[in-house]
C-alpha cells in the first residue's frame, strides 16, 4: 500500500488529521533543501532528529502574534475592527486563531488571555462574562484540536484569570495548555493557590519563572506549545534536536565525546537550522506576503531558532558505563557533573555560532530541552530530565533540575505527580514552587495521580481519550496519539508520585 493510501484508510484518523498527514506527505516529495552527507548520516543513526518538521519550511515552526496590536488596530486582511466589547473581542480572537499557522497547523500561542480580555470582562456582568468565556474555551477545545495550543495568564491576579481557572476545573478539557507567568512579588499567594488547586485537578496551569523569562526575553515574552519561551510578535523558526544518547554511541569515553563527537553533532544541527531559517525567510512566501507579517503582527527579526536536545541522562550514563539509571544521572554527583560539563559545552558552542537573521537575539539561537516524542521509547528522556522509574525524592529531583533549567531560554520543564492528600493541602505545594523557582527552576508542572487530564511530557491528554485510541476509536485531539505512544513506549505517565510516607506518624 502507498503511504497516502495507508493514511486515508486509517480509521483512527479524523478528517483534519488525515488532511494534515497527506499534506506532510506532499511536502516531503520536495528536496530543495540539501544538507551535507554527514548530516544525513547523523540523521540515519538517530543522533539528530528533525522532529518531522517537513522538507519545506513554508512557515516558522512557532508563531506568537501580537494580539495587543489586533485589539488596538484590528486586522485589514481579515476585516476585523478593534473590538469594543467582550463578544467582539472573543469573536476577533476566534477568527484570528484560524489564520495563525504553526508546525501543527494550529496556533501554539493564544495570547495572555487575562491581560487581553480583562478590560472587556470588567464591563460585563460576571455571570455573563463567564458564559462567554465558557463558550470560548469550548470553541478552542473543539476547533483547535491540538494540545500544543497554549494560553498564558498572570502574573497579576484578575477577574478573567479567576474565571478561566474556574472554567478549566469545571470543564476538564485538555486544550488549551495554560501557563501562569509566576512572580511571587507580582502574583498574590491567593491567586497562585487558586492556580495550584486548578493544576492538581486538571494538570494546568503550569508555573513559569516570570522573573527568569522576563530577564532573558524582556516582558514581552510568550509561553507557547509545551513550555516554549519565545518573543511576542515573533516565535521560533525551527526546532531540531540532538538525541544525546545516540550522539554518545561512537565516543570512547567522556573526553572523546566532549572533544570530538559533541562538536561534530552540534555543528551538523546548526547546519540544519541555518539552512531552514534561510529558506523560511528568503524563499517561502510567509515572511514576504503573509498578513501576519505585512500587518506587523509578527516581525521577522523577533524569531529565533530553537536548538533542541533530549537524552542527557542516558548519554551521561552511557559515557560513564552506568547500567542502572537509579545509580546514574541525577542520583550520582559524578554523573550530574558530567551532565553540566556537556551542557556548558553545548551552550558555548551554540552561543559562538552566528545565526542567520535572529536580529533580536544578537544573531544567536537559543537552547531548548525537547520533551521527547511518542516514538522515543526509553532511550532518550525528555531534555535533561531524570529517567522515569529512576526519579529520586522530589527534593533531589528539584535540586538537579535547578542546575539545568537556566540553560534553556526557549523552554524546559519538569512534571511532578502528587498523591491524593495534596488535593486538600495545595498550600503545601506553593512553597515548593516558590523555593525551586528562586533557585533556578524555570518551569514547574504538576497533577494529581487520579486525574483524567494528565501531562504526558509537556502536553496534556485525557487518559479516557488514550483509552479510546486503544479501542481503535478516533480522538478529536491530534495529540492523544502521542500520549498513547509516550505511555506505551516510555511509561511517561508512570513517573514517581510525591506522597507523604503513609506510616510515618506514630500518632495515626
Amino acid at each position, binding site marked *: 500500500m502507498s503511504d497516502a493510501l495507508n493514511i486515508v484508510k486509517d480509521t483512527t484518523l479524523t478528517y483534519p488529521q488525515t488532511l494534515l498527514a497527506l499534506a506532510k506527505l506532499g511536502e516531503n516529495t520536495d528536496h530543495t533543501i540539501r544538507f551535507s552527507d554527514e548530516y544525513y548520516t547523523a540523521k540515519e543513526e538517530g543522533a539528530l532528529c528533525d522532529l518531522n518538521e517537513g522538507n519545506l519550511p513554508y512557515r516558522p515552526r512557532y508563531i506568537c502574534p501580537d494580539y495587543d496590536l489586533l485589539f488596538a488596530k484590528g486586522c485589514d486582511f481579515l476585516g476585523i475592527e478593534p473590538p469594543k466589547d467582550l463578544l467582539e473581542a472573543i469573536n476577533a480572537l476566534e477568527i484570528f486563531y484560524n489564520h495563525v499557522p504553526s508546525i501543527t497547523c494550529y496556533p501554539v500561542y493564544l495570547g495572555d488571555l487575562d491581560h487581553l480580555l480583562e478590560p472587556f470582562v470588567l464591563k460585563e456582568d460576571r455571570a455573563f462574562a463567564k458564559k462567554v468565556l465558557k463558550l470560548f474555551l469550548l470553541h478552542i477545545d473543539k476547533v483547535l484540536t491540538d494540545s500544543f495550543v497554549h494560553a498564558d495568564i498572570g502574573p497579576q491576579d484578575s477577574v478573567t484569570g479567576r474565571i478561566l481557572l474556574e472554567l478549566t476545573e469545571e470543564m476538564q478539557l485538555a486544550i488549551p495548555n495554560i501557563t501562569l507567568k509566576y512572580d511571587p512579588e507580582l502574583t498574590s499567594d491567593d491567586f497562585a493557590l487558586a492556580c495550584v488547586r486548578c493544576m492538581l485537578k486538571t494538570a494546568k496551569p503550569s508555573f513559569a519563572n516570570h522573573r527568569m523569562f522576563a530577564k532573558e526575553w524582556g516582558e514581552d515574552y510568550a509561553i507557547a506549545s509545551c513550555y516554549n519561551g519565545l518573543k511576542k510578535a515573533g516565535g521560533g523558526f525551527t526546532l531540531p534536536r540532538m538525541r544525546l544518547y545516540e550522539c554518545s554511541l561512537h565516543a570512547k569515553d567522556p573526553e572523546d565525546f566532549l572533544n570530538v563527537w559533541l562538536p561534530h553533532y552540534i555543528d551538523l544541527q546548526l547546519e540544519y537550522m541555518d539552512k531552514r531559517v534561510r529558506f523560511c525567510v528568503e524563499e517561502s512566501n510567509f515572511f514576504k506576503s503573509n498578513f501576519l507579517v505585512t500587518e506587523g503582527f509578527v516581525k521577522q527579526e523577533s524569531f529565533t531558532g530553537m536548538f533542541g536536545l533530549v537524552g542527557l541522562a542516558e548519554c551521561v550514563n552511557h559515557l560513564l558505563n552506568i547500567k542502572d539509571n537509579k545509580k546514574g544521572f541525577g542520583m550520582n554527583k559524578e554523573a550530574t557533573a558530567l551532565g553540566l560539563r556537556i551542557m556548558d559545552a553545548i551552550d558555548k558552542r551554540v552561543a559562538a555560532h552566528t545565526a542567520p537573521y535572529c536580529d533580536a537575539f544578537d544573531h544567536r539561537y537559543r537552547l531548548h530541552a525537547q520533551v521527547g516524542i511518542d516514538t522515543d521509547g526509553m532511550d532518550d528522556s525528555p531534555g535533561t530530565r531524570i529517567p522515569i522509574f529512576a526519579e529520586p*525524592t*522530589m*527534593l533531589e529531583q*528539584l535540586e538537579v533540575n535547578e542546575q539545568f533549567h537556566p540553560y534553556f531560554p526557549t523552554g524546559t520543564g519538569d512534571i511532578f505527580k502528587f498523591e491524593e*492528600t*495534596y488535593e486538600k*493541602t495545595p*498550600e*503545601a*505545594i*506553593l*512553597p*515548593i514552587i*516558590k*523555593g*525551586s523557582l*528562586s*533557585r533556578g527552576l524555570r518551569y514547574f508542572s504538576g497533577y494529581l495521580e487520579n486525574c483524567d487530564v494528565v501531562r504526558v511530557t509537556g502536553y496534556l491528554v485525557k487518559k479516557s481519550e488514550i483509552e479510546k485510541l486503544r479501542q481503535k476509536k478516533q480522538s478529536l485531539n491530534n495529540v492523544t496519539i502521542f500520549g498513547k505512544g509516550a505511555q506505551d513506549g516510555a511509561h511517561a505517565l508512570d513517573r514517581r508520585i*510525591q506522597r*507523604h*510516607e*503513609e*506510616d*510515618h*506518624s*506514630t*500518632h*495515626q
Partner: protein
Amino acid sequence: MPWTAGYSAMKKITAPINRIIPFSNVDGPSNRTAIFFQGCQFNCRFCHNPETIHMCVHCGECVEICPVKALSIQDGRVVWNKELCVNCDTCIRTCTRSASPKVTEMTVDELLPQIERVRPYIQGITLSGGECTIYKDFIIELFPRVKEMGLTTLLDSNGSLDFEKNPEILEYCDGVMLDVKAADKDFHEWLVRHSNETVLRNLEYLLRAGKLYEVRTIIFPGRDKDNTDTVSYVSRIIQDRCIYKIIRYRQFGVREEQQRILGDDTTDEAYAKTFVELARSLGAAKAYLV
C-alpha cells in the same frame, strides 16, 4: 555556616533521629520538614510505628537477618549502613522490643545542615516521633537556630512533658500539635499504658499560652462512650481557638495482637463524621475529619 559559629565549645547534646521527611504536607500547615525522634514513654495499643517506641538494646537479633548486610555489630553496638540499606524493614519486623536499628544519633550541628538544605522549599519544621519532647534540651538548642533561618517550629507531642514547668521549650516554638487520646483516666491508662493527667493539664495550659496549634483525637470502631467522652471533653475546652483533627483508627502497622483487641478494620467514615458534628455542636468550630 553562620549558625555553627561559637558552638564548638559547647557540650554536644545529641538525640536519636529515626527519620527525616524533607517534604511533608500532613505534619502541620504548608510544606514542612518532619523530623522523627526515636523513643516514647507511652505505649499506645494503636501505635502504627511501634518500632519508634523503644531504644535499641543492641541484642543483635536483626543483624543476621538483613538481606543486604546493612547491619553489623561494632564494639557491642548495632551499626546501620544507610547507603547499603534498601528499606525492606525486615529488621523492624524481627525486633521484638519495638525498636529499630535504623536510628542516627545526631547533634544539633549535624541536623541543621539538613534543614538548611530544604529551607528554600518549606515554611517550617515539625518535630515528631516517638516523642520529641523527651529530648527537650536538644529542642531548646535547635529551635532558636531554626527560627534564625526564618522557619516556623512546631512540636508534635503526646503531651507527656509538663509544658508549664518547661517554658524554655516553648520560647522558640510556634505551636504544639497535641494528641488527646482519651479524656477518661482509666480508658487512657488502658489504651496508652500511661496516665493522662499531664496531657489534660497541657491542653489547658497550651491554650492559655497561645501555643496550641491543633489537637487530635482518634475515633475507634465501636467505642461509642470513649469516643464521645474524649471528643466532648476536648471540644468544650478548645472551642474555636484551635484546629481539632478527628482521625479514624487505621489498622495498618498496628501490632497484630493489638489489632485483635482494637479491630482489624478502619473506623467507618460516616461514624467518624458524627464526632466531627458532635465537636462542632459543642463549639469546636475548627473540627474536621482527616
